[in-house]
């Protein structure tokens, strides 16, 4: 492979020849660039660019030639190009036609300065407020739609509702079951380990009963559903948004809230309590097996202790939260779906947001419930 070179030779007083040879290609551009920049450029002379030695030329090479010509000219030299092979002329003309280009500035994150950082905090805060307002508005619109549906219940789309219940409920049974079982096992194991030191092994059952029935069963179910179905809602509605399907629905005279949102929301509100029930059961089952294996608490003893440890409403407290969580997950999932702009990238972004937001709000709501129940002293 021929080497590349650009050499400067003083020919006669007041006149300099710059000879370019070899392959002026993008592959050699870095090397050429380095040599050209290192070169001591003459001033106020007559410079001849002798290109006869150039074997191959591409856009990058042509740019380097023209940049050199320009650099020389700005130093007051009279530049003359000589011996350019005719087949390179169109390329050189094409690049020359673009003129002296100004490289694009690369985007720089704005909050690298202190003022930028403070501005960013403000922007994010305002964004959050606007978002909360907008979600509230969406909730209102959904309530209105649901109200209209109550007046004319025959408009309820039973097929869609059942399909949603299958997707969000029935299909989630294995994963919810497996994870709840494992949570039960883990709590029993860790609880037993700690309580054994006080000789209070049997209280592992209390820990399991209260922990799973009041909090963990419903939280696990809600978090899995937020990841599984909340994200699916956003992705489905968002994709429809990208394809202009939502607009198509509107022009046909269908209400997207009624067609898309209500079946999903109702489906979730109906199925999450059932999934919670399932999670409670399997979680306790896992805990029971673990207690038996590691503490020797056999199932009849486990059940007896469980019955003694629970208040009648412990179970209901967990279950009551499920529809609320379902409402939050469904609402956020659908809302974020409608926020998708017309690009595939934004589907992904909103889906992520939807899951994070839904889980965040579920846990906030759970904390709210805890305060509420403790105020009621139950």
């Amino acid at each position: 492979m021929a080497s590349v070179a650009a050499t400067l030779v003083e020919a006669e007083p007041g006149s300099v020849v710059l000879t370019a040879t070899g392959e002026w290609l993008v592959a050699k551009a870095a090397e050429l660039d380095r040599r050209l920049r290192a070169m001591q450029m003459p001033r106020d002379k007559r410079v001849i660019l002798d290109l006869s030695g150039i074997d191959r030329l591409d856009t990058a090479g042509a740019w380097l030639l023209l940049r050199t010509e320009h650099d020389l000219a700005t130093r007051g030299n009279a530049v003359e190009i000589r011996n350019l092979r005719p087949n390179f002329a169109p390329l050189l003309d094409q690049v020359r036609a673009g003129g002296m280009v100004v490289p694009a500035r690369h985007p720089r994150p704005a909050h690298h300065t202190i003022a930028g950082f403070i501005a960013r905090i403000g922007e994010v805060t305002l964004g959050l407020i606007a978002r909360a307002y907008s979600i509230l508005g969406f909730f209102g619109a959904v309530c209105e739609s649901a109200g209209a549906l109550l007046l004319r219940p025959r408009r309820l789309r039973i097929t869609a509702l059942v399909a949603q219940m299958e997707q969000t409920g029935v299909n989630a049974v294995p994963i919810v079951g497996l994870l709840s079982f494992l949570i039960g096992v883990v709590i029993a194991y860790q609880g037993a380990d700690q309580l054994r030191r006080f000789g209070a092994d049997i209280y592992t059952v209390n820990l399991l009963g209260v922990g799973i029935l009041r909090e963990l069963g419903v939280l696990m179910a809600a978090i899995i559903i937020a990841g599984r179905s909340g994200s699916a809602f956003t992705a489905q509605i968002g994709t429809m948004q990208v394809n202009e399907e939502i607009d198509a629905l509107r022009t046909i005279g269908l209400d997207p809230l009624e067609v898309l949102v209500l079946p999903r929301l109702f489906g979730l509100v109906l199925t999450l309590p059932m999934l919670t029930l399932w999670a409670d059961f399997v979680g306790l089952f896992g805990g029971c097996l673990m207690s038996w294996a590691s503490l020797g608490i056999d199932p009849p003893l486990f059940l007896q202790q469980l019955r003694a440890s629970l208040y009648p409403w412990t179970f209901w407290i967990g279950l009551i939260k499920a529809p609320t969580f379902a409402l939050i997950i469904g609402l956020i999932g659908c809302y974020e779906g409608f926020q998708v702009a017309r690009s595939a990238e934004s589907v992904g972004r909103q889906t992520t947001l939807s899951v994070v937001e839904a889980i965040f709000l579920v846990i906030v709501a759970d904390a709210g419930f805890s305060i509420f129940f403790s105020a009621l002293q139950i």
Partner: protein
Amino acid sequence: MPNDPGEPIIRVRGLVNRFGAETVHDGVDLDVLRGEVIGIVGGSGSGKSVLLRTIIGLNRPVEGKVKVFGRDVLRMTDRQLRQLEHRWGVLFQDGALFSSLTVAQNIEIPIKEYYDMPLRLMDEISAVKVSMVGLPGDAGEKYPSQLSGGMRKRAGLARALALDPEIVFLDEPTAGLDPIAAGAFDELIRDLRASLGLTVFLVTHDLDSLFAICDRVAVLVDKKLRVGTLEELLKDNHPWIHSYFHGPRGRAAQYSETGVLTEQKTRSVAPM
């Protein structure tokens, strides 16, 4: 490096593509010569894009041979294919620009991948490409979502040209452009071909593009290719080819390019 000038730069033999029970290509043969612009036409769903994707190694055919630069694309390891890939550039239908990067960054991606180049030079080269494809100077700083459809295609072309490839594959470059933008794009391809000596593989629906810039045309009919110059294909009496070139739109495109109408009478309606 350049293969034997006599040998076609792309050679496809006996290509068979099947998706499920549906056969898309059944024995496709094609030779593309160095430096020519070849147009691939065919009805919707006839497998034009599949042919393109097969040649650039994105789709594995059921049978057949594909040679690019004299080398068998289908029997290559991924690594060997990488080495060929910088000798061709591809413009996908909607530009396929990376949406999280600016236009300039999009153009720099292939350069960065193959060469170790100072940032400043890379920025200069990407700016040269931006101006070569006829985009305004500030386009390099913009994100793809801030550009119109026509500008996105130009930006996609700039990225395809980033490494000065020998072949560019264009998948319906003028689809969805207004006639003025489409005409300008044709002109751009013609200019770039003249200055860079490109071989252009052009998949298109656009009759005007065919008449304006293609040296030869390959028509996908009956799962096979019929290749010829425009004059030859205009005389072809295969029903689809005939109605394609002699339908109202075909005749309008011919007229605007050549100023003559073929023997078809202007008023008689060609079989559709």
